[in-house]
């Protein structure tokens, strides 16, 4: 049997050097695939088994938000601009992608603090908690794709061939969610205000990102959207799913780059924070 030796030193993380750090981070999955599976299944059951409506919750909240916006638009209270395709399809698609981000972020923020009892007693790779939280939002996403399919049938539209790219298209959004999730979960472990504030922050972001309305070209809001990576990460997949053409590829490329950077930085900060979180959770 290969014997392994571990040495614990003060400020352990920085002594290894960044290369070793990255190698260890990558090993998180290769060493513990079953643990990840356990957490995924447990989180899934926690969300869906104990609630009466179960899987319907994945549909309910987005349906309600879209319903309200459609109502306001129809009554002339809100004008949403020129949208691609029928408004409901536009809004639901946007919402479904947005959910990956919003649900992922909110779940990750409290992932560490909720598992406090385990973290202070058992030595296991904590990033699995955040990965599992975001995986949950992906599971909801997959369920919501069903509604999307139904809507396409309802409007008698055929999805363009670019639809096959969907798994690839949402990847940058997932990376962004994970990166921010890592950072927020660490912050929340130290400052509990973060968890309280995050739902409001996410709602605020929802309103300034063109999810429910078409992007304004001029004006202050237009300017914000130009520089908001979330706009590109959501509207480009949406365009490619509904019409098959998009003009924002440069922006999407930049947003992808930012997402990858945030992902690595976030994971690394999370990894280095390791024990400091345990002491405060």
């Amino acid at each position: 049997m290969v014997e392994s030796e571990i040495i614990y030193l003060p400020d352990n993380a920085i002594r290894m050097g960044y290369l070793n750090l990255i190698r260890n981070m990558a090993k998180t999955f290769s060493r513990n695939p079953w643990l990840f599976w356990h957490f995924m299944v447990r989180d899934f059951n926690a969300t869906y088994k104990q609630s009466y409506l179960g899987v319907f919750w994945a549909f309910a909240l987005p349906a309600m938000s879209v319903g309200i916006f459609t109502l306001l638009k129809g009554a002339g209270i809100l004008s949403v601009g020129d949208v691609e395709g029928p408004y409901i399809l536009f809004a639901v698609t946007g919402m479904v992608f947005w959910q990956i981000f919003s649900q992922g972020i909110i779940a990750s923020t409290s992932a560490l603090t909720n598992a406090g009892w385990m973290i202070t007693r058992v030595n296991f790779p904590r990033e699995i908690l955040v990965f599992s939280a975001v995986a949950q939002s992906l599971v909801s996403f997959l369920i919501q794709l069903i509604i999307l399919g139904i809507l396409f049938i309802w409007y008698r539209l055929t999805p363009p061939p670019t639809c096959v790219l969907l798994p690839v298209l949402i990847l940058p959004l997932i990376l962004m969610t994970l990166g921010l999730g890592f950072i927020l979960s660490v912050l929340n472990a130290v400052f509990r205000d973060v968890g309280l504030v995050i739902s409001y922050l996410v709602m605020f972001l929802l309103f300034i990102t063109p999810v429910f309305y078409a992007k304004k070209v001029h004006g202050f809001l237009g300017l914000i959207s130009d520089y908001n990576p979330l706009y590109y990460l959501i509207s480009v997949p949406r365009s490619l799913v509904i019409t098959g053409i998009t003009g924002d590829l440069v922006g999407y490329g930049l947003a992808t780059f930012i997402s990858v950077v945030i992902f690595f930085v976030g994971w690394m900060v999370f990894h280095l924070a390791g024990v400091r979180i345990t002491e405060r959770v």
Partner: protein
Amino acid sequence: MDSGNRGEKIPLGSTISTEGEAVITVDRVAKKYCKSLKRSMRYGISDILRNAVGLSSHPEVLRPEEFWAIDDISFSVQKGEIFGIIGPNGSGKSTLLKMLNGIFWPDRGSIRIRGKVVSFIEMGAGLHPVLTGRENIFFNAALVGMAPHEIEGKVEEIIKFADIGEFINIPVRNFSAGMWVRLGFSIASHCDHDIFLVDEVLSAGDLSFSLKCNQHMKTLREQGKSIVIVSHNIPVIRKICDRVIWLGKGKILALGEPDDICDQYRIQVESMAD
């Protein structure tokens, strides 16, 4: 524990450990805690940020409101030894065990661990309330890094040792403290890891289970495993430990033969009670 993401990991290849080789070496270790919550938050963020950019967080320096929970402790645990830790409440025993488990890092000194560690510390450790007893066996195995097939063969043995009857198929949240201890200890001690850490939570088990545990720990010792046990149950410490350490206020007060140390401890406690 085989989690290299929290320490340097140097595989030793197929080195055969000789009898009496140290599996745990604790060298001049210290750990500090912060008394004030607000300051703790500030220190936490500052430490995280400094580490993130590669700077040392100067753990050896005591900042305002910090105190040493463990101060300059050195000892070693040999292979195939049962090592006991005794001392009054608040002397740093749990903190020390957590450092051996890799949950906390020392702020001074170093800890070297040879082999895989499994621990059964504090109520609720590793058992998930919503899952049943049986499901928890697999969950716990995954937590300590074991694959389902590795634990598969041992499931019946674990259930038999725990001896909780029907409750094995009931969610763990409905267990009594004693049943929790039975299942938890049974899972942890059948994991086939080299080092086993166990603390006073073991006392929640009844007399017959207690005797079973003592016997099982002796069997593990014969198999070459090392055990570190923290307990207030002095008679048990006397019976099964090979060496004992007495901790007080974060420092080692004495280390040596179980009877010797336990006598010293008892004398001191009784003289203070008068």
